[in-house]
């Protein structure tokens, strides 16, 4: 059975990726399950979707615990434990990752036991084209699986994207053909694993917790505003940067423009952006009357910080 998990951010089309890949497997005569993890779809938030495909009936249910292929559409997710990107990683598992860094760098950094492949479209794709990432991932995964013809991949794309119109379909077919061709050297690298059996299941080392009363065991939260422990700054792909020389100190504008309480004003009216929580909506950039807030790609901002250079927007 093929077990494939797609990890990305809301808005990158991971659900679409799983549907296209599932459809393509189906056209090839496989039994298929494709699903998105049920939960809220939040643009920018970590999400995943998965596909099972087998020639026999599929009795497994739920999230894939032992994947044969993990596709990572956004390499900043790897650092987010809650995204669970590396969950169930094993020696036979292939990791396909969309990144500007090399496969060797990822293999070493994460101590990955199996093959690592870089999604090569990365450098040619512009920031605004994130919508195509899902299709690219599906096409690459189809090639890596080695049992899906390009013709059926394209048919699956046509079926899944039909409501978006002919132009979008044509564009995506081009992107898919490209990704499929680039993965050709690795075609068939993903292994179809056997069925899992309950008999082989090793239970984890249980820790018995005492039975507590509701006041202790109930899901009640006693500390206010502790949501701030959640680092939603990791959702950001663009970073707002204030040019204090141009800033008029009319901070009531940017403070009220931020839906995430991530801007506050100092006593003298100078606004400060809380980068641990700014999700990168760019509303402050759009609303600042003297255009004193610029947008810098987060990757560039991080690289500059690493090099000890100041981060400023060229606007």
């Amino acid at each position, binding site marked *: 059975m093929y077990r494939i998990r797609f990890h990305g951010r809301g808005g990158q089309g991971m659900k679409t990726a799983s549907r296209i890949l599932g459809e393509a497997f189906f056209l090839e005569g496989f039994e298929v399950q494709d699903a998105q993890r049920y939960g809220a779809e939040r643009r*920018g938030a970590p999400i995943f979707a998965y596909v099972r495909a087998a020639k026999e009936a599929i009795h497994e249910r739920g999230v894939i615990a032992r994947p044969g292929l993990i596709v990572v559409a956004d390499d900043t997710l790897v650092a987010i434990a809650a995204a669970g990107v590396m969950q169930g990683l094993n020696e036979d598992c292939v990791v396909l990752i969309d990144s500007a860094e090399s496969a060797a760098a990822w293999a070493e950094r994460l101590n990955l036991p199996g093959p690592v492949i870089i999604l090569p479209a990365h450098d040619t794709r512009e920031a605004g084209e994130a919508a195509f990432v899902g299709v690219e991932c599906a096409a690459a995964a189809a090639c890596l699986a080695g049992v899906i013809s390009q013709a059926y991949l394209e048919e699956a794309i046509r079926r899944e994207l039909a409501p978006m119109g002919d132009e979008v379909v044509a564009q995506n077919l081009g992107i898919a053909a490209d990704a499929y061709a680039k993965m050709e050297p690795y075609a068939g690298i993903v292994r179809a694993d056997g069925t899992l059996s309950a008999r082989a299941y090793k239970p984890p080392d249980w820790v018995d917790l005492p039975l507590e009363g509701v006041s202790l065991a109930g899901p009640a*939260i006693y500390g206010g505003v502790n*949501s701030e*422990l959640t680092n939603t700054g990791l959702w950001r792909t663009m970073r707002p940067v204030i040019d204090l020389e141009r800033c008029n100190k009319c901070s*009531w504008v940017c403070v009220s423009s931020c*839906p*995430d309480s991530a801007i506050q004003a100092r006593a003298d009216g100078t606004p400060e952006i809380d980068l641990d*929580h700014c*999700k990168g909506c760019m509303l402050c950039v759009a609303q600042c009357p003297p255009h004193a807030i610029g947008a810098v790609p987060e990757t560039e901002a991080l690289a500059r910080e690493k090099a000890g250079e100041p981060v400023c927007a060229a606007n």
Partner: protein
Amino acid sequence: MPDAGASRFRRMRDLPSSHMLGAGTAMCAGCGGLAALTEAYDVLGENTVFVNAAGCMSLMSVYPFTPFRGSWLYTAMASAPAGAQGVRDALDVLRARGRITVQEDLQVVVLTGDGAAGGMGLSATSGAIDRGLDFIYFCYDNEGYGNTGQQTSALTPHAAATATDAGNSGFPGWKKDLFALWAANKPAYAATIIGGEPLDLVRKIEKARSFSGPRMILALSPCPTGWGYDPKLSIEIAHLAVKTGIWPLKEYIDGRVSHTRMPHPRLPVEEYLKPQGRFAHLFEPRRNEAALREIQAGVDAYWAPWEAQREA
């Protein structure tokens, strides 16, 4: 604009310089509903208990995290006003027994999406109004079932494409008028707001707080995810909603509805519709003149009596 006389918010610069609602919530980047709640919370303050119908906002407090300074309770989708009744009753009992002081008492606020508010939650809402429940009903209206992928709700506007009306003509029905439903039943206060107009918003929340009994706040909530636009446009779209007259800013007090903003001149509705993916089919591949005219006519008809009154 609501009367500024009694307000502590006389001009834009009186708006808070930081927000009381915590950062780090799971709402989408650029969420217009979160914007409205964030601004409102600065006025509501920590002595507020939220009773939340299932929807996007029920992900605000996911164990073990909360952005609130005070209490929050999650209810089934149809039942938030019933939950609010229970909480209010409990607070009243505590007050009667002297276990909490007037200062320690809490304002009970229902937090609900438009799907719950205009659909399965209506019965519980109606009951709460009938019983004169002392609460604020805060509905963030993203014009669809946002949390589950923007299916059509009773408050989806005409022609908007949704997950369930995906064809090339969008939702064939018309937006339910929740404000009129409330106003017809003589609440203590009702108002429409939008996050992109923070001064109007905080004054109305201030006013809502000054009354007791059933009070309703309806916030049009531009939703980048469900409406299909870049998050950085959320405020611009809010401004266009007001300037085109699509979203009248108004309030109900003592049997009278009055507008806190009269857009004049009103911009053509298509300025509001155009930047949104859910209305793209009205412009591409060719303009759907009939539908655009129909939507404009609806807005014109709404304003006609008010504009006539102003001219007189």
